[in-house]
């Protein structure tokens, strides 16, 4: 090797012709030459290693292929012909995302990808400076893509500059309004002043916030900024429009008041007249009571009822006058005793009361008693009269206040009455709002903007499209070991490498047309808000809007999403570009036993709807059914088993009995009491299950972290009824082929499906030992049973295929975005990232159904575990841990002894 060649050059025993040389210099020369040789060797060492670092050959010798590109990834890369740019940005310093552990892996992968195809450029970024450069480049692209947004934002800044002073001026105008002005009675000047000040402040703060966001080095969220400014603008517009409309309405008020004046005064007078008439019937105060009190009372009752009528009519008059106008906001409308109409109403109410009282006395009491009471009623009538007069003058005051316009107010009204009032401000504002609405959500950049802020990402750029793959996609958390010791709290959860598929599917989705269209199939009726009182909202156990994460992931897996609301359309939407369709069928809503209003027709889930789905599937469109445990519905305390709209269909057509009334639980064997179990509380919500079969959908997920929620068992429906697990009979469909995907195997005896959830919860709450209810009928279901299956059959020569995933709740947003909390035995809580791996089960299912099984990622491999009995282990320990080194020792002793002689 090259290193050795240096040897001869510097050998001090080499020719020494110059013996006369000064001793010291010759020694120094020897030292220097050796030093040079060592420096040269070091340099050579570095150069060779640098070269080998650049031009390395790497191959994965390990048979499971965990460190090479998976077949699926390779297949994706092979079909890419356009230039692709991959940038790994790894600047993390977090201890659990150690660059020294993870970065080399990313780089190796990138190198391998680059080696596979010439058209792929790979860039590795590790320093913050390089990262900033990439960001700058991305920002340039983003700025181009978001030019509309940026224009809107810039215009907003200009607008803010112009309108700030305008609002200021409006504020000042209202401040200058006289405190005795006409509008003061409506508190209008103060309100207007406050609104204008708020408008000015909103403009200023929004403008400042936008400026800050733009100055931020990372990629600005343009759509978010546009949303922000739109909200501000809307608020401003609303307050300005309120002002303008208000002023216009107020301007008409004086006229209306003078117009209504006679009418209102007349009504008020009528009340007074009616009261005095009624009073007359009983005579004046201090005069003798009428001789025939009964007759007098009778007359009185009639006239008092007239009072009620007149007071109510007066109230109505006033209310009519107020109408939708501003009169009720006037100060004189509200007196100390209440608003004017209210006072009339009270008057009317009391009058009615008096009439009733008088009637009672007249009918029931003796004459002496009646006589005794009349003076009391007289007193009441006097108070009554006084109140009626007071109200009348209040009405007069109101009318006076409303008609008494001062000059400045008149001027304001004159202005407000013009068409272009405030339009100088409103028009540009509305224009900008319209443009902001037209700027769009910038969908393609959304992911970039959101994810680029992470420390460790891989950027995929194809043409002008940019995708981002985050650290947690490249290294999802591994499934914890299913056997052996669990719960070492000091241990961080292990991550498994999934990078090749994460990156390659991203490439795929950016570069190629969608493989298929996933039709989100559901039965929903959500009436618009204004109709919600009259129309019921009908949604299944999973609302279609709760599947944002699933939609996003499916799109990134190069699938298109469309929707089929069975309640509205009879057949799925026509596929765009004639690509294949896959139905993703959500649990349908349970038909309600009776309509909310008699005779009302509402859409209901019915066998007809099942028929629609059946037709589509029979036509060759594959489907993924999301089912799951359904909590029992209680009717008068009697639980009715959970409803699943497709259970009949699946049982009869597909021989699948989806037992939605059983819930799979994951307990833990009690080490002290064999046969008894305890329930670790987190398994209720986060049940870890990755016992996949070798089915292509599940096999890659064996080592992936899967948490399921509300899972229910699927068993094969048999021909006969009354089997131990209560399987219902199925139609004799000989050609149905069922393959398990995810199962609860027999040996997992700590897992079973419970039938009586109530009793179970009570047991858990009381900390009683748990064990499966082994009753023949109505008991619990023990393994083996499936949680996900594929079924296929031929229908009229066409191959129909479905996959049933019986843990629907595990795919909703709230589940996929929720931190997993694992409760340890010692009482500590171990938070883990959300179980996003679940979606892969769905994606793999779709891939499998559309015949793109080759793109299913290989997934992290599982290594066969050691199996050894404890007793054997003891022997092994003695033999190999102690005897083997002991043997070495003995041999040594023997040799030394032999050599002694």
């Amino acid at each position: 090797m090259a290193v050795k060649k240096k040897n001869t050059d510097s050998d001090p025993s080499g020719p020494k012709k110059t013996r006369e040389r000064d001793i010291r210099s010759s020694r120094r020369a020897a030292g220097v030459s050796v030093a040079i040789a060592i420096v040269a060797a070091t340099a050579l060492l570095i150069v060779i290693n640098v070269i080998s670092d650049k031009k390395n050959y790497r191959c994965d010798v390990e048979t499971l292929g965990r460190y090479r590109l998976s077949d699926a990834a390779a297949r994706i890369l092979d079909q890419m012909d356009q230039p692709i740019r991959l940038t790994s940005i790894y600047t993390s310093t977090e201890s659990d995302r150690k660059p020294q552990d993870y970065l080399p892996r990313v780089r190796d992968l990138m190198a391998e990808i680059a080696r596979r195809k010439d058209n792929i450029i790979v860039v590795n970024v590790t320093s913050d400076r390089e990262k900033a450069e990439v960001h700058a480049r991305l920002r340039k692209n983003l700025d181009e893509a978001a030019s509309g947004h940026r224009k809107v934002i810039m215009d907003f800044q200009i607008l803010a500059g112009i309108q700030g002073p305008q609002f200021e001026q409006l504020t000042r105008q209202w401040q200058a309004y006289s405190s005795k002005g006409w509008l003061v009675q409506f508190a209008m000047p103060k309100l207007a002043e406050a609104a204008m000040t708020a408008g000015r402040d909103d403009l200023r703060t929004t403008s400042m916030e936008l400026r800050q966001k733009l100055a931020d080095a990372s990629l600005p969220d343009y759509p978010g900024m546009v949303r922000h400014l739109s909200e501000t603008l809307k608020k401003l517009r609303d307050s300005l429009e309120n002002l303008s409309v208000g002023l216009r309405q107020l301007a008409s008020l004086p006229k209306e008041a003078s117009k209504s004046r006679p009418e209102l005064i007349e009504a008020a007078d009528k009340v007074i007249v009616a009261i005095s008439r009624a009073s007359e019937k009983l005579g004046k105060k201090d005069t003798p009571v009428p001789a025939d009190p009964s007759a007098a009372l009778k007359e009185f009752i009639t006239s008092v009822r007239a009072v009620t009528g007149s007071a109510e009519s007066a109230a109505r008059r006033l209310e009519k006058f107020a109408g939708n106008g501003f009169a009720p906001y006037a100060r004189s409308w509200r007196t100390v005793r209440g608003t004017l109409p209210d006072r009339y109403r009270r008057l009317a109410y009391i009058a009615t009361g008096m009439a009733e009282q008088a009637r009672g006395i007249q009918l029931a009491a003796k004459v002496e008693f009646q006589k005794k009471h009349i003076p009391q009623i007289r007193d009441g009538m006097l108070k009554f009269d006084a109140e009626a007069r007071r109200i009348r003058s209040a009405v007069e005051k109101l009318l006076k206040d409303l008609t008494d316009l001062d000059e400045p107010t008149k001027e304001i009204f004159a202005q407000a009455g013009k068409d272009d009032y405030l339009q100088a401000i409103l028009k540009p504002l509305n224009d900008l709002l319209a443009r902001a609405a037209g700027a769009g959500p910038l969908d393609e950049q959304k992911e970039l903007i959101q994810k680029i802020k992470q420390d460790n990402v891989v950027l995929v750029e194809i043409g002008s499209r940019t995708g981002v793959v985050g650290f947690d996609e490249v290294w999802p958390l591994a499934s914890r070991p299913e056997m052996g010791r669990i719960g070492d709290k000091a241990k961080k959860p292990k991550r498994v490498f999934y990078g090749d598929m994460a990156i390659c599917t991203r490439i795929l989705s950016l570069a190629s047309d969608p493989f298929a269209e996933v039709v989100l199939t559901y039965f929903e009726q959500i009436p618009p808000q204004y109709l919600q009182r009259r129309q019921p909202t009908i949604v299944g156990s999973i609302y279609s809007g709760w599947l944002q994460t699933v939609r996003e992931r499916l799109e990134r897996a190069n699938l298109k999403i469309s929707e089929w609301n069975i309640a509205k359309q009879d057949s799925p939407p026509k596929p765009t570009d004639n690509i294949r369709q896959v139905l993703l069928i959500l649990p349908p809503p349970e038909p309600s036993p009776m309509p909310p209003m008699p005779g009302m027709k509402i859409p209901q889930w019915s066998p007809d709807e099942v028929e629609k789905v059946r037709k589509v599937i029979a036509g060759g469109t594959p489907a993924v059914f999301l089912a799951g445990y359904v909590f029992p519905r209680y009717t008068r305390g009697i639980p009715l088993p959970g409803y699943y709209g497709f259970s009949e269909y699946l049982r009869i057509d597909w021989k699948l009995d989806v037992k939605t009334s059983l819930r799979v639980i994951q307990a833990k064997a009690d080490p002290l009491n064999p046969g008894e179990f305890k329930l670790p509380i987190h398994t209720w919500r986060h049940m870890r299950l990755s016992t996949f079969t070798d089915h292509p959908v599940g096999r890659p997920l064996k080592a992936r972290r899967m948490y399921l929620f509300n899972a229910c068992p699927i068993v094969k429906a048999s021909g006969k009824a009354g089997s131990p697990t209560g399987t219902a009979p199925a139609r004799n469909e000989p050609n149905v082929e069922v393959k398990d995907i995810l199962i609860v195997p027999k040996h997992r005896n700590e897992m079973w499906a419970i039938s009586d959830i109530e009793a179970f919860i009570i047991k858990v709450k009381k900390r009683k030992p748990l064990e499966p209810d082994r009753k023949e009928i109505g008991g619990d279901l023990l393994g083996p049973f499936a949680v996900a299956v594929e079924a296929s059959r031929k229908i009229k020569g066409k191959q129909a295929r479905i996959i049933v995933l019986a843990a629907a709740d595990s795919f909703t947003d709230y589940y996929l975005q929720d931190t997993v909390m694992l409760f340890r035995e010692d009482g500590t809580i171990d938070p883990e990232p959300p179980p996003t791996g679940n979606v892969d089960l769905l994606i793999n299912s779709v891939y499998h159904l559309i015949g793109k099984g080759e793109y299913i990622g290989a997934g992290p491999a599982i290594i066969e575990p050691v199996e050894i009995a404890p007793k054997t282990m003891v022997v092994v320990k003695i033999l190999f841990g102690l005897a083997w080194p002991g043997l070495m020792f003995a041999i040594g002793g023997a040799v030394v002894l032999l050599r002694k002689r």
Partner: protein
Amino acid sequence: MIDVKNLTKYYGRTLAVDNISFNVDAGSVVGFLGPNGAGKTTTLRILTCFIPATSGSAKVGGFDVFSQSVKVRSRIGYMPENVPLYPEMRVREYLMFRAALRGLPSKQRSAAVDRAAERCWLISPEDMMRRRIDQLSRGYRQRVGLADCLLHDPEVLVLDEPTIGLDPAQVREMRKLIGSLGEKHTVILSSHILAEVEQVCKELIVISSGRIVAQGTPGELRRRVTGPSRVIVEVKGGQPELMAAAVADIDGVLDVQYTRSGNWTRLTVKGGENADLRQDVAALIAAKGYHLRELRREVSSLEDFFVQMTYEQISGQKGIGNRE
């Protein structure tokens, strides 16, 4: 056979060998003589290519020790001063290893080992060849070392202090062996003891403080010895002072010293150069009637010369040679 020219060796700033030059003819046995730290071992190490010289040249069998070190090394058998050996090996194993290391073909190795062992009296007792080296006595180790040197029948044998640490009988044997080796090989041996060198070597090189102070056959060197003759007398029968005084009166006596040993008095009588005073002293003793026990003349030996030379060197050139 060995040709040394202007050889100088510094250890750091310390001068160990100072510009020495000498020649050794093939087949001669040369003694390298000098006190401890004179530079003997250094010179020998340079000759055996263990360390390089600072300047000057040395050739063995016509090959330069610097540029043709391997050739030189294969022609030399070198026994270092303390005979370092691998303690855990058996004698035969060691010799076989050394034979292999010296490049002896594997077929000849065993024979070569047997031959060398025989020459160095390693065949008795019988199990000697099978003994572990760390169980050997000093003398046997020395023999093993010597046998190692002889394995490949080298042209030149370099023996550094071959007799040091041996008992007298062993010393005698070693001397005999070296003497016999001189017939076939060129031998350089170093010693700080004159006696053995004097008997074995045909030629002596006396070195002190890194310099050659004398060179020649033992006879030549002896001839260069100059100094007074001495007569040693042991007598009894009178006062020591008186006896000394009486002897001092003899004509030609320069100085008399006396020491007592029991009843006897030992007189050391110094006379002029090359004078033999024995007769005069004997006559005086007889005349005085003293009892005589011993009477002998001492001539200045090589030993004296050696001491003289090296002493002069040291006193004359302080500051250079004495530091090592």
